[in-house]
């Protein structure tokens, strides 16, 4: 069996470094955006451009299908020596993918002038310049600029200012893998033909659009089938000259598999994996450049594995071997991020989540041997991608908790746990029928989806609640320029109660949410017209029946069509609690004085600053005073965004997938009444207490989080930090029971940072950031920062011994 080390050697890590201006250390600046061996793949852009030039004047959806076909026919394909599951998106394993048709200016700038210089050589740079000349005026972003032209509102609120970050970021959406594996692309093609026949009879009013779409979908499916056969030919060719008999056998198996899938229904585990990977690769990296996986892996793959085992075709070891080789493919993927986005996705390659566990559409537990195989693979590979999400429900077996804990204990950061008991009812409230709500999955890190359902471009941006509070304390006027940028709320000096502060805050939220969604909605129309996706549509539910691209309709039964990611919940709650306590309860300071101190970034009143830090109640300590406020912040802001619907009538929601936004939006948020200084980060996840402010241990954090109404809130994210020894040996049982209590408290999500010595060393240097880090050494617990240096050193060295 191939080992993780052997596979790792084949890898080029493509994580992006955080290089956003003003935030990088000198060291980071010198290192550039990517590791030196990483390149941008040029072929996709090259063939896409060639095809576009040939098809000008044709219907857009046909042009997209032809472009896909042109790319797939001409692109370099390769099979690396370690591969058994094949499929590549660019000309070499060192390449990242780049969405030139979506937006190109920021990449060109990065590559030609700034932090991305190493990504292309001179010849490559010249070609990129050449391609960009063609796309100038034609990329979605260029067209969007034209769409915004002449509208000062759109122009003004599109610019990044810090209250929200809107971007040309991806549409996710999870292909209907179950259907793909069951009937193959050939089966889907037959459905398209059938639908074409049907409209030829019924001649609907949009006959022309439907016909174009269906013909484009058929064309793209044939292109993908042909592409797979290219791999079969390649494998046969390699097998012909292969000396090693074992590798020869593997290559022959690849050839047979690629001749069979994704065209036909999958019969074996290997065929199922291959079919899935081909379709993933085309939909995520070739037809459109995006990220995420979203498959319910054990649910889809378990039956194929079982059949193979029963037929004696493979052993468990064989399956593990295949899975490891699949895993390394995900770890090797990489996306060309702009410099601005690198601030949000610091360290990210792609965000690709595989889902295991949970209930099926009928409510039965899905755990099967594949569930455990995924965990075993993850534990052995220790790759950052794919990220594993594990759904937990009342019937989750204890064994699964145990095995998941073993993986979490490695410190790799996953599986990330989602709670069916919270999320299924939430999705029902949002409009999904029970069976569909039970089928939810995460596509990116924690982007919630219902697999197979239309999910194109759900995300409307990253929204900064803390900044909205700041605007409320400044009547929506930027004190530096005097400009009325936010809503003209009341003069805060006149606030008589905390309720008035909250009202003004909510008014700002409403104002900015509208601005952000207006930009998103106009942009979506641009996408609908200029970036149809015939292949992804063909493998998405509802498109063939309607004869429509997935950008052109919304399923009325889909609860999660639209969302915006919210950040800074805990900061707002802590800030409101501080105002309530110091201004209205104790009357220690007036509203006006407080704002004056904030505007000076606490300078001149360190005593007040310290008092607020140490005496104001903070979310995460099971203190009703602030926890109730936090619940209010969650529920009320969700209520506000739900006031808005898209053009199909589907409501917007908030979401907790903050990624590293807390850090990046925080940089543009001045001092806030919770004690944050100007530019400090925000809380690291939607449900997390502010970093360092939860001092009563992990049970108090959950008790606070349990007070956030899961039904009136949204899909949340909660980070918890544990030391490795809390998850190992005799403590493992305790940890598992802690997880069960988390489930019983109906908290939507939890994930763990299991701290290593590196963090502890950082804690030595910056104790103020780690005031809540508990260490257990003897029969005694202590806050790490309260210990002497020598003792800290001793704990660090013991942690390294791995107990």
């Amino acid at each position, binding site marked *: 069996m191939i080992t993780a080390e052997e596979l790792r050697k084949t890898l080029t890590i493509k994580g992006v470094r955080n290089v956003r201006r003003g935030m990088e250390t000198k060291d980071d600046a010198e290192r550039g955006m990517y590791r030196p061996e990483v390149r941008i793949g040029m072929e996709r852009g090259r063939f896409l451009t060639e095809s576009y030039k040939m098809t000008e004047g044709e219907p857009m959806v046909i042009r997209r299908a032809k472009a896909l076909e042109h790319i797939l026919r001409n692109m370099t394909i390769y099979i690396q020596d370690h591969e058994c599951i094949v499929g590549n998106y660019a000309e070499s394993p060192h390449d990242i993918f780049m969405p030139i048709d979506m937006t190109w200016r920021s990449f060109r700038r990065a590559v030609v002038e700034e932090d991305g210089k190493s990504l292309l050589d001179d010849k490559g740079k010249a070609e990129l310049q050449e391609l960009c000349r063609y796309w100038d005026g034609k990329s979605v972003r260029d067209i969007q600029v034209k769409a915004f032209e002449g509208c000062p509102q759109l122009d003004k609120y599109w610019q990044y200012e810090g209250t929200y970050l809107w971007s040309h970021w991806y549409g996710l959406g999870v292909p209907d893998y179950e259907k793909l594996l069951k009937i193959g692309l050939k089966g889907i093609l037959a459905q398209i033909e059938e639908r074409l026949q049907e409209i030829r009879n019924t001649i609907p009013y949009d006959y022309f659009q439907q016909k174009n779409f269906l013909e484009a979908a058929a064309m793209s499916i044939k292109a993908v089938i042909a592409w797979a056969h290219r791999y079969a030919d390649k494998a046969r060719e390699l097998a012909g000259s292969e000396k090693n008999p074992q590798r020869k056998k593997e290559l022959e198996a690849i050839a047979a598999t690629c001749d069979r899938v994704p065209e036909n229904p999958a019969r074996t585990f290997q065929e199922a994996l291959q079919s899935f990977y081909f379709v993933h690769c085309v939909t995520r990296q070739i037809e459109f450049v995006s990220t995420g996986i979203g498959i319910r892996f054990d649910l889809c793959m378990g039956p194929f594995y079982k059949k193979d085992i029963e037929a004696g075709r493979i052993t468990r070891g064989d399956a593990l071997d295949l899975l490891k080789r699949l895993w390394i493919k995900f770890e090797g993927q990489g996306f060309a991020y702009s410099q601005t986005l690198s601030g949000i996705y610091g360290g990210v390659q792609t965000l690709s989540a595989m889902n295991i566990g949970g209930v099926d559409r009928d409510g039965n537990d899905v755990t099967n041997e594949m569930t455990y195989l995924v965990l075993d693979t993850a534990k052995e590979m220790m790759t950052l991608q794919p990220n594993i999400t594990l759904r937990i429900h009342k019937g989750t077996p204890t064994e699964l908790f145990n095995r998941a804990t073993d993986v979490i204990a490695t410190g790799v950061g996953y599986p990330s746990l989602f709670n069916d008991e919270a999320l299924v009812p939430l999705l029902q409230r949002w409009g999904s029928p029970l069976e569909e709500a039970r089928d939810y999955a995460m596509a990116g890190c924690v982007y919630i989806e219902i697999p197979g359902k239309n999910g194109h471009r759900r995300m409307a941006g990253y929204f900064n609640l803390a900044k909205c509070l700041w605007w409320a304390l400044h009547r929506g006027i930027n004190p530096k320029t005097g400009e009325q940028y936010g809503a003209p709320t009341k003069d805060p000096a006149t606030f008589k109660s905390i309720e008035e502060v909250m009202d003004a805050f909510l008014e700002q939220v409403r104002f900015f949410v509208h601005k952000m969604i207006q930009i998103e909605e106009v942009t979506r129309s641009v996408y609908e017209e200029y970036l149809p996706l015939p292949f992804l549509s063909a493998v998405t539910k509802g498109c063939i029946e309607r004869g429509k691209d997935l950008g052109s309709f919304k399923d009325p039964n889909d609860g999660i069509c639209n969302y915006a990611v919210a950040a800074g919940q805990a900061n707002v709650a802590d800030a409101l609690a501080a105002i309530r306590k110091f201004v209205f309860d104790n009357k220690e300071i007036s509203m006006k004085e407080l704002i004056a101190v904030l505007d000076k970034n606490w300078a001149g009143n360190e005593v007040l*600053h310290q008092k607020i830090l140490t005496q104001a109640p903070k979310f995460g300590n099971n203190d009703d005073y602030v926890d109730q406020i936090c619940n209010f912040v969650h529920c009320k802001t969700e209520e506000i965004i739900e006031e808005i619907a898209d053009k199909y009538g589907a409501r917007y929601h908030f979401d907790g997938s903050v990624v590293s936004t807390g850090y990046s939006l925080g940089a543009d948020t001045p001092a806030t009444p919770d004690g944050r200084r100007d530019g400090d980060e925000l809380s690291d996840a939607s449900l997390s207490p502010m970093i360092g402010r939860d001092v009563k241990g992990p049970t108090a954090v959950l008790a606070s989080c349990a007070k956030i109404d899961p039904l009136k809130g949204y899909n949340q994210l909660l980070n918890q930090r544990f030391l490795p020894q809390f998850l190992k040996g005799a403590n493992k049982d305790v940890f598992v*029971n802690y997880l069960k209590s988390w489930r019983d408290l109906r908290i939507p999500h939890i994930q763990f940072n299991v701290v290593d010595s590196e963090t502890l060393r950082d804690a030595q240097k910056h104790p103020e950031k780690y005031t809540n880090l508990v260490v*257990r050494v003897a029969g005694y617990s202590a806050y790490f920062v*309260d210990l002497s240096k020598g003792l800290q050193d001793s704990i660090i060295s013991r942690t390294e011994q791995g107990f």
Partner: protein
Amino acid sequence: MNDGKGLIFNIQKYAIHDGPGIRTSVFMKGCPLYCKWCSNPESQRAHPEIMTYDIRCISCHRCEEICPVNAISFNEKRRQIDWEKCDNCFKCSGECPSKAIERIGNYLTVDEVLNEVLADEIFYRNSGGGMTVSGGEPLLQWEFVAELCRKAKEKGIHTVLDTCGFASWNVMEKVLKHVDLVLFDVKHMAATKHKEGTGVDNELIMSNAGKTAALVRTWFRVPLIPGFNDSPEDIRKIAEFARSLHIEKVSLLPYHELGSSKYAKIGKTYSMDGLIPTDEEKLKTATAIFESHGLKVEKER
């Protein structure tokens, strides 16, 4: 005492080494023993006191201004306390904005403590945990502790008493009625050695250990103090004693100077400075000896 209130210096959530499952540990302040190696020196005095955290101090001088006995002064910008002068009036800790001076020890009612404990009930249920009363020495405040345990049990909470066993049996018996499991600290079998390390004789403790084990489920807790009780001979004697009482389990606490930095924070000096923490070998040897006596061993790290 104090209208039935108890003097408590800490309530620790997610305590996972003070008995089975996820527990809340209630630390009672005041102890009749003065173990030289004590890692919670702030638990020893039976009255509230101040504790200082220099790293948090912002040198605002508010404490200096308010101290009625002029116990606080500044030396090259660092705040200093004259511990001799301080009479624990807590004016400074009330005034300090950054918790650089904190009051240790608060008088709480049984119900106040119980509410804190009940907040984590859902965690006890899944993990088989509950409440542990520890210290200090809980039996110094036996009436409070007995009532706390009684009420906790009434609510279905599993109760553990962590004790050094230095109390009259009369008193102990009254508390044990409401206790499901006892963590009984055993430091040394030889009376003179015991007195040298803890300040008290071990006769009463030994006799209480026997009576306790006969009455309630009992585990031993043994701190392994280098050079004091970690020789194979010392360990063997404790192991024999444990076996003779049919003790269910022995928890070993390897010595660490973890508490040493706290001594200065409350104006005490640490007498064990420089003592090397228990090494893996010693721990293994001790474990082997206990196991050879048929005892289950748990290492607390």
